[in-house]
């Protein structure tokens, strides 16, 4: 990577700064909004600098989730639900797709290509298309309002399977053969060689899938009806008052900022692995 001095290409920096400002401004507004009282925002007088009520707003959002007007669920509960869902989905996706890609790439069995294509075909059906039958199955299994119902249908992943398949195809045949001669069976080869070689891919996928899981909206909306099962993304929407009720925007803004933190932290902490996993194949 080259370090350019600012004056070398100030035009580029100028446009980049504008771009960042455009993207960051709504986030900044949310942050500012979470520091004023409800009245200030409702009257449309919110200034562009931080207000005095930050700590109380955040405590309220975290602890009870409700302001003066709307009865909500504590953000703490909802974030825990979201965390459980995002972790279960991302780890489950990685585990399932690692194993299925391993089977498709390294084993000869009847119908191998058929199964591969079946996995591939599911890519062409977005969640929304199969959401009614999926809902029917999950509700018949009695998994409404449970973590299982929330996560299991989202775990199967064609994208991750394909990604691992492509990576496994780059592992040279000779390496497999060397392991066979060294006496490593399929499971040993998986644990000792395939898994360590996949770790950057796993990290990259974890980041993507965690954010995917965290931001799920439609499925949790259908599958969770009780308040203590709802996720933060759903919860924020439900906080917006309907009809005559006024909305506690300061609480919503605080909850939004809180909801942003886990994905941001995941990206920041795993950035190094994430970029490595997407950029080089580590061979």
């Amino acid at each position, binding site marked *: 990577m080259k370090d350019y001095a600012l004056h070398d290409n100030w035009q580029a920096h100028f446009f980049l700064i504008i771009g960042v400002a455009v993207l960051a401004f709504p986030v900044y507004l949310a942050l500012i909004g979470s520091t004023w009282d409800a009245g200030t925002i409702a009257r449309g007088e919110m200034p562009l600098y931080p207000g005095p009520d930050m700590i109380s707003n955040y405590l309220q959002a975290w602890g009870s989730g409700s302001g003066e007007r709307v009865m909500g669920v504590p953000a703490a509960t909802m974030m825990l639900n979201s965390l459980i869902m995002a972790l279960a989905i991302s780890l489950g996706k990685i585990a399932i797709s690692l194993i299925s890609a391993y089977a498709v790439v390294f084993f000869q069995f009847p119908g191998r290509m058929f199964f591969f294509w079946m996995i591939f075909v599911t890519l062409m059906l977005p969640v929304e298309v199969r959401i009614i039958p999926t809902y029917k199955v999950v509700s018949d299994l009695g998994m409404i309002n449970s973590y299982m119902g929330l996560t299991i249908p989202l775990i199967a992943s064609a994208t991750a399977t394909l990604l691992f398949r492509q990576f496994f195809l780059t592992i040279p045949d000779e*390496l497999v053969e*060397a392991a066979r*001669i*060294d006496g490593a069976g399929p499971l040993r080869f998986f644990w000792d*060689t395939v898994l360590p070689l996949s770790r950057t891919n796993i990290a990259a996928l974890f980041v993507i899938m965690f954010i995917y899981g965290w931001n799920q909206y439609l499925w949790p909306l259908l599958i969770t009806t009780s308040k203590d099962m709802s996720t933060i993304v759903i919860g924020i929407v439900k906080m917006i008052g309907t009809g005559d009720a006024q909305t506690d925007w300061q609480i919503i803004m605080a909850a939004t900022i809180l909801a942003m933190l886990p994905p941001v932290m995941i990206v920041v902490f795993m950035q190094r692995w994430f970029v490595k996993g997407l950029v080089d194949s580590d061979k």
Partner: protein
Amino acid sequence: MNGAHIRIVNIRKNFGKVCVIEGVNCDIRESEFIVILGPSGCGKSTLLRIIAGLETATEGEIYIGGKIMNQVEPKDRNIAMVFQNYALYPHMTVWNNMAYGLKDRKMPKTEIEARVKKAADILGLDGLMQRTPRQLSGGQRQRVAMGRAIVRNPAAFLFDEPLSNLDAKLRVQMRLEIKKLHQSVRTTSIYVTHDQVEAMTLADRLIVMNAGKFDHVGTPMDVYERPATLFVAGFIGSPAMNIIPMELSSEEDAVKIPGGSWLPLAGRLMNARNKSVMVGMRPEHITLAQGEMESFQIPVEFVEVLGADTLVHGPLNGESQLTIRLPGSFKVSEGDKLKLRIRPEDLHMFDSRTGLRLMTHSNPNRRLHGQML
């Protein structure tokens, strides 16, 4: 640690309808270094993989140390293999790469340490044990791959074109190291290559493979001096042997250069089936004639100066192109005419249809001296 006797009995291999190995047989003695040489696609790597157990034979049997191996898993065949691209575990250190096969066999730790240490000593890998393969040069990786084979103390080493990924200089150096290694451990080795220099220098015995068959099995000198088929004749030797169709005399003791003079043979040809034969002349066996009778002439078309040698190319009587290897000190330029001769015993005759070598009656296997001089 002398390795095992390996027997290849009537091995055939079909991929679908395509037959890549057509029933080959060979007895490989203990401690022998066998090189299988052939052009790409001749089935040599497939044969090696069948011996290793990575591929199953369509027909035939493999015996290692007297025991039939057809149904035995690669790990239980007590062989070690060195691959062309080294196939090192990229995420493991050199030490772990070498120890991995031993750990899988649940060997005691002290024994593993001793063996890895010994192999590292033999190969000069001492300072590199904690590095990963990507921190090593090509030659070092190749050494680690060999180390992984040595620590196993196997019945046989199988080498699958191990030097093809190295640059020319390193290849020469590693070739010598493999030779030295074999001289010190004396493990039965089967080495597959398409490089004839590797084949000639390493082999105790050489198998020249062509289109799924063994064309010639013999010592390197035997293969060079008495190639069994036209293919072997053209494949071994650099620059390649000149092969020219000629007409056989009615007494079957001389051949006629197309539109030119007769070249006497060392004796009458045995079992020549027709009058047209393929005659092979090695570029290094053609010398300048100094007034002898049986000579022929070529105009010099172009000259390649290699330093130690000079290669001269020219058409033989306007037809077949002839290459001659002369000492580097010899000065010649394009347009010159050269008067040349070749000793009768340096002529190789092959059946023009089957490509098989034709022997002469008089002492076909020994070089004759003084007859023409």
